[in-house]
C-alpha cells in the first residue's frame, strides 16, 4: 500500500514536471548577438556574405545543405515562426523560410549605419542600434527601434527611442532587458495596446543596474543571464528590483 502511494506520488510529480515545459523539446536559447539559429530540423548560420543551411534532423550528424548569398554587412540572426530576422549594419532583413532549405528575402527596413542585434516577441521586433569604435566609428545612432512585424512582408516602425549605447537585448513577456553600454543594464515594462489594428507600444524603465556594462543577455524562466566582460552575472526577475544570483568568473 505504502509503495502504491509512493508510486502515485512519484507519477504526479513526474507529470507535474512535464507540464511545466511548453513542449516536449528541451530548452535551448542563444543571446541576441547570435549568428546561429536553430529552427526545427535546420541550423541556420550567417557569416560575412552568406547564410548557410544545415540539416540537423539527426542532431549528431549535421549535413551541409545550402549556401545563400546575403548582404555583406549581416551581423545577427534570430528565428521566429516562419521567418529569419537578420540584423545588419544597414538595416533589418526578413527572410521567409517556409521552404526551410531555401530562405528567401521578403523585406528590409533600412536604418542609419549602426550595429544592430534583433529579437522578436509577439509579432514585435526590437532592434538596438549602437555605435562604437569597432562599428562605424560614431557615424550611426544609438537607439532602440520597435517594429511591427505581424506582416513580415511589410515591417513598420512603431517608434524609435534614444539610448546611450545599446548592445544585447532580450524580451520575455512584458519585460525588455537592454545592455545600454556604460549607462548600465536596464529593464523596461512593455505596454502594448491594440486599437483598430494599430499597435502601439510604450516602455517604462522599472529597474537598472548601472554598474553593469554588458554585451548580451538571455532571459528565461525568470532567470536573467548577463555576459559582462570579465564575468557572467545572474538575476532573478520575478520581482523588481531584481535579486542577484550566483555569478561566474
Amino acid at each position: 500500500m505504502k509503495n502504491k502511494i509512493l508510486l502515485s506520488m512519484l507519477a504526479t510529480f513526474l507529470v507535474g514536471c512535464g507540464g511545466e515545459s511548453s513542449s516536449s523539446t528541451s530548452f535551448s536559447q542563444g543571446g541576441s548577438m547570435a549568428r546561429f539559429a536553430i529552427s526545427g530540423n535546420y541550423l541556420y548560420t550567417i557569416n560575412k556574405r552568406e547564410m548557410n543551411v544545415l540539416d540537423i534532423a539527426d542532431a549528431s550528424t549535421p549535413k551541409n545543405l545550402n549556401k545563400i548569398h546575403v548582404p555583406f554587412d549581416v551581423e545577427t540572426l534570430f528565428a521566429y515562426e516562419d521567418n529569419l530576422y537578420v540584423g545588419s549594419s544597414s538595416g533589418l532583413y526578413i527572410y521567409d523560410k517556409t521552404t526551410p532549405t531555401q530562405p528567401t528575402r521578403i523585406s528590409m527596413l533600412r536604418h542609419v549605419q549602426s550595429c544592430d542585434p534583433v529579437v522578436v516577441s509577439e509579432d514585435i521586433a526590437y532592434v538596438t542600434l549602437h555605435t562604437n569604435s569597432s562599428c562605424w566609428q560614431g557615424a550611426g545612432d544609438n537607439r532602440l527601434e520597435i517594429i511591427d512585424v505581424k506582416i513580415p512582408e511589410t515591417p513598420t516602425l512603431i517608434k524609435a527611442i534614444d539610448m546611450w549605447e545599446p548592445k544585447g537585448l532580450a524580451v520575455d513577456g512584458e519585460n525588455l532587458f537592454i545592455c545600454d553600454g556604460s549607462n548600465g543594464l536596464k529593464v523596461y515594462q512593455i505596454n502594448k495596446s491594440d486599437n483598430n489594428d494599430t499597435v502601439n507600444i510604450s516602455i517604462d524603465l522599472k529597474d537598472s543596474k548601472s554598474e553593469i556594462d554588458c554585451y548580451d543577455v538571455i532571459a528565461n524562466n525568470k532567470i536573467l543571464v548577463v555576459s559582462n566582460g570579465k564575468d557572467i552575472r545572474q538575476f532573478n526577475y520575478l520581482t523588481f528590483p531584481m535579486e542577484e544570483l550566483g555569478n561566474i568568473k
Partner: protein
Amino acid sequence: MNFKIIRKLSIVLLALFSLQGCVDYRDDPVCSELNYLTFEEFRAKGIDILEAREINQAGKIYVYENTLLVIEKNQGVHVIDNTNTKDPQPKAFIKIDGNIDMAVKDDYLYLDSYMDLIVLNIKNLEHIKEIRRVNNSFTYDPYQSYRTDGCEFNLTNGLIVGGEK
C-alpha cells in the same frame, strides 16, 4: 550618352577611387609575421576539452537546459553547470581555434572553428565528447582573428595564423 551622365559618372568614379585610397597596402611587421597552416595541419591540431578556467572576456552566451555556455571569441567555450543558479559550477573549457558561435540541439553542441563545424555531446558535463567535424560548412574569413587588413595574403597556402590579434 549625354554629357551630364558622363559628368555624374566621373564624379562617382572619382569618389570610389578616393575611397580606395584609404586602404593602404602595408609591408610592416604586422604583415610579415603572418604565417599559414594548411587546412590539413589545422584540422589535425583538433580541439581540446580542458579543465574549467577563469573567464577573460565573456562574449556570446547560450542556455541549454541547466547548462550555460560562454564563448571567448576565437578561443573556445566555457561550460558551466547552472543547475543551482545561486552557485553555478564551471565544468570545462573547450579550446577551439576560430570559434565565434554556438547552438545546441538534443544534447549536441555545434561550434564553428573557422570554416568547419564541430559537434560535441554535452549530455554529461563530466564527460564531454567530441563527435565529429563537418568540413567546410562555412566560407573561411581571413579577417576573422588576426590583423590582416592591408596585408597581402594567399589563401591557397591555407589558414592564416600568427601576427597581431
